């Protein structure tokens, strides 16, 4: 058994810094690289892509990245685990296989973890009594069934561990939890039991620290962002995991960024409900038990973590079409910029009334004045410029389009000194809403498919 393993975060979300994963492999020793691509709405976008072309449905820019990353992974014997597979992990795996073949790598094993996509199975699941009630409102899924565009179960570390046992060096998954992709290597390398709750919880916490990329190593750091060195080449976090379940959070010394107790704490409280019950498919972790200690510069020790048995449910992420939105904006210049923007708002609202348009919601913001802090923002006397932003939300597309047509005419029919209308008419966009639900674990099963490049 290894004394410890180093699991590096290469990406916090789809669209994160492109060269970060390359730096993680190049700039120092690591054993695993984990990359998170999937947000709740992402699955819906991918499902849409797949419905247009059944060969798509995974993170397309993962493939050009792999052309640069794969030689480094092979050379340094680093294993990659990513949920870039979206709603077509096998398709993504085949695309990676093609790259490996073109580059002449043989003996390389690539695995796909799938089975999380339950869109086709929703009806039989509902028929068998799985109501998949909205966790926030308690309403049954049947209510929005016809508008559902994606439905994915969050799998945990188990199928990833299985892929590692099969010898895969590259593992592409569908909807596996952000924490599961970091926990799996620890279970695989240290042989942790599936009921060793404290260790599993430690792995989950390591995964939680890794899951947002540089947010744990100085990015988006509220308590001291000015202290963070070289943010232009910020080093993403690395979790150094030990067999006893303790962790060291660190980063490559050659890169910028900062790993301190405070940066790690900020990440720990990110997207946290009840800190004593952080529920994952593998274990329930108790964040209130965590102890932190600055061991050295850019090295934070995380230890004493407690965990409890997992629940009998998987969380399901369901997205559905919930109408349209349209947002228009114009910039008004000094003098009297705010008054002009307020007048523009008044005109648009009267036009909406005059045209007989009805919306579920109309929302106005004055960017540069009080958009972030609302009424708590201190007033500014005659600001240099104000961006007037007005958005509507509704279910009638024609009305949305009529609203969109009303923005640009304000340039010559409304208050003066307007600019920032170069984009023309605003676009009407679909609103994709999120439906979190639970599903009994025994109703779905993850699948692992491994292929070897020869």
């Amino acid at each position, binding site marked *: 058994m290894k004394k410890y393993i180093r699991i590096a975060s290469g990406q916090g979300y789809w669209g994160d810094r492109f060269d970060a994963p390359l730096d993680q492999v190049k700039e120092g020793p690591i054993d695993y690289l984990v990359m998170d691509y999937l947000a709740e709405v992402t699955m819906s976008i991918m499902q849409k892509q797949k419905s247009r072309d*059944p*060969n798509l449905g995974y993170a397309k820019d993962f493939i050009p990245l792999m052309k640069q990353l794969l030689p480094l992974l092979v050379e340094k014997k680093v294993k990659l685990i990513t949920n870039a597979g979206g709603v*077509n992990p*096998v*398709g993504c795996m*085949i695309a990676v*296989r093609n790259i490996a*073949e073109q580059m*002449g790598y*043989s003996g390389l094993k690539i695995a796909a973890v*799938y*089975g999380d*996509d339950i869109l*086709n*199975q929703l*009806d*039989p*699941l509902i*028929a*068998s009594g799985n109501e998949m009630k909205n966790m926030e409102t308690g309403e049954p899924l049947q209510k929005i069934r016809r508008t559902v565009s994606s439905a994915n179960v969050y799998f945990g570390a188990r199928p990833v561990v299985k892929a590692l046992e099969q010898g895969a060096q590259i593992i592409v998954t569908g909807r596996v939890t952000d924490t599961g992709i970091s926990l799996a290597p620890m279970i695989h390398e240290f042989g942790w039991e599936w009921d060793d709750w404290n260790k599993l919880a430690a792995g989950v916490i390591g995964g939680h620290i890794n899951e947002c990329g540089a947010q744990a190593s100085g990015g988006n750091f509220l308590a001291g962002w000015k202290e963070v060195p070289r943010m232009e080449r910020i080093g993403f976090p690395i979790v150094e995991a030990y067999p006893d379940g303790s962790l060291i959070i660190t980063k490559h010394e050659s890169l910028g960024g900062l790993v301190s107790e405070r940066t790690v704490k900020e990440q720990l409280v990110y997207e946290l409900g009840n800190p004593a019950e952080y529920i994952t498919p593998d274990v329930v972790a108790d964040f209130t038990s965590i102890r932190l200690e600055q061991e050295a510069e850019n090295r934070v020790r995380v230890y004493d973590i407690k965990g409890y048995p997992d629940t009998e449910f998987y969380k399901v992420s369901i997205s559905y079409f919930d109408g349209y939105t349209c947002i228009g904006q114009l910039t008004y210049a000094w003098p009297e910029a705010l008054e002009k923007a307020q007048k523009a708002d008044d005109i648009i609202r009267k036009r909406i009334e005059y045209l007989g348009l009805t919306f579920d919601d109309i929302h106005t913001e004055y960017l540069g004045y009080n958009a972030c802090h609302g009424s708590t923002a201190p007033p500014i006397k005659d600001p240099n410029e104000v961006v007037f932003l007005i958005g509507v939300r509704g279910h009638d597309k024609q009305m949305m389009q009529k609203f969109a047509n009303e923005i640009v005419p304000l340039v010559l029919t409304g208050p003066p000194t307007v600019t920032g209308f170069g984009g023309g008419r605003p676009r009407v966009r679909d609103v994709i809403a999120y439906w979190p639900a639970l599903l009994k674990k025994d*109703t779905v099963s993850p*699948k692992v*498919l*491994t*292929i*070897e*490049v*020869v």
Partner: protein
Amino acid sequence: MPVVKESKQINWKDKFVELVVVVIGITLAFMMNRSYENHKNKQVEYQYLQSFKDDIGSDLKQLDTLLRHQERQLQKIKNSQSLFSRSTINPDSAMTLIGALTTIYIYSSQKTTYETIKSSGNFNILSDYRLKQALIKYYQGMDDLKYLRQTTNFYYNTFVIPFILKNVDLHRKKIVSLNALRNRRFRNMVYGFQSLLIQKYTMHKELYQSARTVMTLLKQI
């Protein structure tokens, strides 16, 4: 004018008997109605069960044949892989491999009863909970297979078919150039396809087991 007060004696005993008779009457009517409904439901359930028996019976036969064919296909692909390490390639063995690669077995289940009961909202008419769960598991397994089937078809169309069209004379059933089989791309194509077929075979086997469970439960009722 004297007011004549007419006092009327209420016979509570009679009223009570009347009330009891009405209550018993209504209850009996409900019971009869329920019993009739139950009887009707039992008949509908019986018809559904018979229909499921036919569907699952036909699925089992089909799956049994399919699994045997797939086993043979996988065996042929496995045996032919020794070709890759030989200095000379036997054209007959090569054609056996090509034959195994060009075959895709498709499982087409009898879903009529399931679709009917599902769309009519009559699923709860099935009184046996275990049977209901087993049916759901079986038909859900079929939907589960859909993704793998799509992926295998994509693989077949993108990698296998173009290779065959380029390198095999289909009219004479001969490989145009045996050297094409030594190519790494060909080997990768074979290994990838084999992995997909193994996975599909495993899922068919699981479906077969699920179908057998359903059949056992159907026979017990």
